[in-house]
């Protein structure tokens, strides 16, 4: 029977099983469940939001139904929390065990595979089906936290080089400004560009699923693998659907994580026939315009220079009551 693991002893046994399976025990999870047989932990698994992880079955019990029971329990618990699609990272050699449970393979690199339970990606694409345009299109994935002249410049440049530019705004709520506010700033800041189409990334690009370290300040070793999966998913599933032949990025002199991500793009995307075009960032007073620079200024309560960094539409939002509430109360968490 699957039970929630709460006691110190249970946790110790679960950890031992997880580590014996060659996985790392990560203390961040919402649920940790296991199956105990004759006083011994024989199967274990955890859920962190919509991600299932640390799934391990004792060697002599493999091939049975224990994994099914663990995954059923985790999906059931996750469902109660409001999630209806779930992801699992596993070794490519284990992918078929999950496919037998009706998981779908989203992307696989030499080292790691990402699978999804529920047809979330298919539904995400179908939802945006009416935005599909034939021809040679381009894409930008951006967080726009907040939307700056830098974004505007990148978008304008990119839009002039392709028939249709898809601008994917990061859906994840891990930034100073909410998705809704960011999306609104982008919409208002780009509405005069007729061949720019806005859409959200859902959890299929630069999300806590595909690329968790994007939202952390310093990268971890797992970050490189996940970056690869993020790009493989984009190249294999998203780009073909929207006829995307070029991915545009701004050159990245500031953030190391983003610089690594750009480097990974150059490595992975061309193999799928997707050109990567890096566009020089726009600068003012010898410093590149970046959203983090805007956030730093806001954190200092300094809004004088805004007009040189962000378009009027963004400035108006930032200075509105709604905008102020965000940076005046949360301004210190850049």
């Amino acid at each position, binding site marked *: 029977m699957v039970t929630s693991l709460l006691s110190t002893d249970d946790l110790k046994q679960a950890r031992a099983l997880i580590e014996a399976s060659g996985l790392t025990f990560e203390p961040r999870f919402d649920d940790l469940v296991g199956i105990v047989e004759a006083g011994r932990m024989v199967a274990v698994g955890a859920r962190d939001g919509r991600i299932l992880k640390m799934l391990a079955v004792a060697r002599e019990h493999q091939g049975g*139904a224990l994994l*099914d*029971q663990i*995954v*059923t329990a985790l*999906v*059931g618990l996750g*469902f109660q929390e409001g999630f*209806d699609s779930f992801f699992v990272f596993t070794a490519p050699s284990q992918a078929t065990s999950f496919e*037998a*449970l*009706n998981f*779908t393979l989203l992307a696989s690199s030499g080292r790691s595979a990402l699978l999804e*339970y*529920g*047809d979330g990606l298919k539904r995400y694409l179908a939802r945006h089906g009416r935005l599909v345009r034939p021809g040679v299109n381009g894409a930008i994935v951006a967080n726009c936290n907040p939307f700056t002249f830098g974004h505007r410049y990148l978008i304008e440049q990119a839009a002039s080089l392709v028939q249709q530019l898809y601008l994917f705004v990061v859906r994840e709520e891990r930034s100073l400004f909410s998705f809704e506010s960011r999306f609104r700033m982008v919409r208002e800041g780009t509405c005069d560009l007729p061949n720019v189409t806005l859409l959200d990334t859902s959890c299929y690009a630069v999300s806590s699923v595909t690329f968790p370290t994007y939202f952390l300040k310093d990268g971890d070793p797992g970050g490189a693998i996940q970056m690869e999966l993020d790009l493989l998913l984009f190249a294999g599933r998203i780009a073909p659907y929207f006829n995307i032949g070029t991915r545009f990025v701004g050159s990245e002199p500031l953030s190391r994580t983003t610089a690594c991500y750009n480097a990974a793009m150059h490595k992975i995307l061309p193999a799928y026939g997707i050109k990567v075009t890096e566009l020089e960032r726009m600068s003012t007073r010898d410093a590149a315009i970046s959203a983090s620079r805007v956030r730093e200024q806001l954190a200092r309560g300094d809004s004088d220079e805004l007009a040189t960094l962000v378009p009027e539409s963004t400035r108006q939002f930032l200075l509105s009551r709604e905008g102020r509430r965000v940076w005046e109360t949360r301004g210190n968490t850049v």
Partner: protein
Amino acid sequence: MKIVKKVQAGTMQSSDLMVVLEPAETLTVSIESTVLKQFGALIRARVDLVLARHGIEAGEVRITDRGALDYAIEARLETAIFRAAGE
């Protein structure tokens, strides 16, 4: 009956299926199955039958099946329908 809330029923074990029902404007049924090629049409027919029997005309029905027999499909789907109707 009407699907008024999002619910789940069933398991992911072999010979079973997991059903998710969600309110929607129109009726859509999606089926994933390890035996879709062999039995997809039969699963669909059984699902339609149960939905019709309970007068379900709108909602999103998502099924992931691992080779469940007809009576299991009926039981899981009916359970989900009763839960979704708030009964």
